[in-house]
């Protein structure tokens, strides 16, 4: 039996790696992937607590998170295609129309 703390710590590590990727990466697709990584880390914590408490609510929440992530991926990738079509780049630093 694996202690719940181990899962929570792994979830925190993955979340922090996702945050760092979000800050550090410059390609808009990779930034989007780091958001997915953070969602996955939170899902792991949900399932771990669901198992620890012996209730299934956490696993149902994970299903909803996955549904929202799928919807987000569809719309977000549409936006990325628009950015690439209008700006001819995927680098977020070159998408600076609002900058003075």
């Amino acid at each position, binding site marked *: 039996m694996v202690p719940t703390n181990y899962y929570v710590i792994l979830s*925190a590590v993955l979340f922090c*790696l996702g945050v760092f990727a979000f800050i550090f990466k410059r390609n808009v697709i990779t930034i989007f992937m780091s958001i997915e990584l953070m969602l996955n880390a939170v899902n792991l914590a949900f399932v771990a607590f669901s198992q620890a*408490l012996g209730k299934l609510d956490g696993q149902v929440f994970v299903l909803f998170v996955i549904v929202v992530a799928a919807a987000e991926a569809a719309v977000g990738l549409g936006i990325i295609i628009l950015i690439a079509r209008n700006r001819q780049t995927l680098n977020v630093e070159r998408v600076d129309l609002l900058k003075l």
Partner: protein
Amino acid sequence: MTTPLIVFFVLAALAVVGAVSLILQKHPIHSALSLIVVMVALAGLYLLMGAEFVAAVQIIVYGGAIMVLFVFVIMLLNAGVEEHTSLSKMAGPPGLLLVLALAGFVAATVARSGASVQATTQTGALSSTKGISEMVFKDFVYPFELTSFLILVAILGATVLAQREKT
């Protein structure tokens, strides 16, 4: 050291290595493949916890549908190696500091509340797929129906965004 603990450490190491590889890889397609490794490792962890339905959904929806969409868009846009300007290189150290602060905060919270949550119950007896279906279609039926609207709006949004403008 028992067998579940060994399996846990192998899968956890796989997930962390995949996440680090996502950060280190320069090409987006390599980052996407690293993310697939993370997701498969997490599916294995769900199986280890006895959440077999979530594990299956993780493989099918995340590892299958969403990542195929990512790889498809990367190839459609012909995304190349990412470029770092001198300004973006400056974002590394402060970002690392912020992430370390966040990690410390999370670690402090986990350490403080560690004693309260212990893995006492064994979910092997808890029939998870049947239980989830009962919860989704009884307790969470309104949120479940709302997600269908969300998916519909997402389909419409993606279609409207990706179509070429008529002149």
